[in-house]
């Protein structure tokens, strides 16, 4: 801690941070729940169980259900390649993984429209073969996959780089196959980081608005996810219903936050377990 600073400076800093947090986080959060129940609990319940809302929830779950496993496989393979091997194009791959973070989600959505849309590059071909991607679920899955691609890989790469590949080498020398090495050595070592990445990826997949909005076409009951449904209700001046659905998403965010904190805590514990006990025992042994 900065001991040189006076008490006044310290308290001012803490106060500024608290006021900022209250204004940008606590207040909107409270408002969401307040507005959601503004017309009573019955209206709240009706808003979230209405067929369009349920359909949006189902679609959100479906998209997350596809996107998260896909990104799990992609993220783990990309992190494995990048951290355990040195190959030409390694840095390019690293940059590509970061691309979705750098590009605005709306632009990401536009890219897919330009590619697969009726007037896009592959549009005529898709039309010929009767495949619909844009303004349909496949496009939304693609857009969400793109936007959430970095989460798992980004979480794992530093972890795997830090752990090095000596344990994997040891496993292979002992006769393990590639799969045995991954399952018995690599996976247990990265499990907490992986879970953390999964939680973040899932949260973003469910909450994604920009990219999905561009490719969805906003067809009620068909291509609406929860975030899109919130917007539609809001634009129709159905504020209470809009906030009611938003509160569901907010609750999801809070659950995610709790899970994330729990995983972080578990991760830290396993790290200190590794680093903390060793020296003391070394002393006992000596």
């Amino acid at each position, binding site marked *: 801690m900065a001991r040189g600073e006076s008490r006044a400076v310290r308290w001012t800093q803490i106060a500024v941070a608290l006021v900022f947090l209250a204004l940008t986080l606590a207040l909107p959060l409270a408002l969401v729940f307040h507005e959601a129940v503004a017309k009573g609990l019955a209206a709240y319940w009706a808003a979230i169980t209405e067929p369009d809302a349920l359909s949006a929830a189902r679609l959100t779950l479906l998209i997350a259900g596809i996107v998260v496993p896909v990104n799990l496989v992609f993220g783990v393979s990309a992190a494995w390649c990048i951290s355990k091997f040195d190959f030409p194009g390694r840095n390019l791959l690293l940059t590509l993984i970061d691309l979705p973070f750098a590009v605005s989600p709306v632009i990401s959505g536009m890219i897919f429209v330009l590619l697969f849309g009726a007037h896009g590059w592959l549009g005529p071909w898709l039309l010929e073969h009767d495949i619909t991607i844009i303004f349909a679920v496949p496009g939304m899955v693609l857009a969400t996959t793109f936007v959430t691609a970095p989460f798992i890989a980004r979480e794992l790469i530093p972890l795997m780089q830090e752990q090095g590949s000596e344990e994997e*080498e*040891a496993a292979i*020398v*002992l*006769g393990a196959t590639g799969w045995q090495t991954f399952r018995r050595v690599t996976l247990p070592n990265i499990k907490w980081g992986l879970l953390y990445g999964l939680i973040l990826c899932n949260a973003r997949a469910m909450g994604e608005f920009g990219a999905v909005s561009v490719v969805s076409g906003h067809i009620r009951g068909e291509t609406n996810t929860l975030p899109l449904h919130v917007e539609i209700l809001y634009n129709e001046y159905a504020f209470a219903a809009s906030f009611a659905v938003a509160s569901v998403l907010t609750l999801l965010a809070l659950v995610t936050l709790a899970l994330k904190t729990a995983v972080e805590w578990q991760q830290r514990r396993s790290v200190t*377990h590794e680093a903390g*006990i060793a020296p003391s025992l070394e002393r006992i*042994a000596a």
Partner: protein
Amino acid sequence: MSIQVRHLRKAFGGFAALDDVSLDVPGGELVALLGPSGSGKTTLLRIIAGLEPADGGTIHFHGEDATGQPVRERQVGFVFQHYALFRHMSVFENVAFGLRVRPRPSRPSEAEIRETVLGLLHLVQLDVLADRRPSELSGGQRQRVALARALAVKPKVLLLDEPFGALDAKVRKELRRWLRRLHEEVHVTSVFVTHDQEEALEVSDRVVIMNEGRVEQSGTPEEVYERPATSFVYGFLGDVNLFHGRIHRGRVRIGESELDAPEWAEARDQAGIAYVRTYDVELAPTPSGNSSLEALVRHVRTFGPVVRLELDLVDGGRTIEAHLPRSRFEGLAIAKGQRVYVSATHVRVFAGD
């Protein structure tokens, strides 16, 4: 199981890590690969294990070509410098790993695995720690787990990368003796990498000295120490002083004085380096002809059975080191700042600057 390495080459980018290395490890021997860092010894070890592909050359295990064989089929035991124990497994599971990953038909039963692992843990004196995690062990204990794990798969050859590198001096000495005894018990062909000459000379049956990707000399510890083949080996093994001079008709001239170098009778005024081991340095209060160098005593350290002196040569201003037995030192009655005359009981001269 013997190892034959022939004309091995390996480059990393433009850097030649191994440059035409050939090597024979007779079956059952314990061989040390000794050299300064960057000499290619670890690269050689990793290529023998199959962890690194070679750019050229061949490796045979007991006459059988293993050059292109994948690591997991080579049946080598490898002990990593930092042990590389599986951090999430107990000591027991670490040692059992190599048995558990065998394909089902050749996988031993749970009871057999248990027996083998406990036997090995007993061999490395760690029976009581079977349930511990690697993080709960000391460095020396981890090293022994790593060894037991490597031995569990009954390797044809055992390869150890700087096995004592990360340990403190006392544990190192203990483990060194222990490895020697273990090798006598298990008798598996073993190659270990070290940059510590004392370790190499004390533990191994045979020492291979490497420098800049090449083998400088290989032989028993006595051979390489008593009869170094190259200037590098002489300089690398033991404490030596070196003198730059000119060789001419069996004499080497250093400054104003001359020393005998009978093996260079044919040489005609060429550059040479004379090596004198610190314990081959003779000191006298008076000059003896022109075969001694004048020096001033700069520093005297008198602990232990050997007295170590630092001497400033008057001619050229270089500092050399001399080790004298305590009795001899006391007979000379030398003190700091005093003028002495330095000669050598044994000199080895190599051509070059």
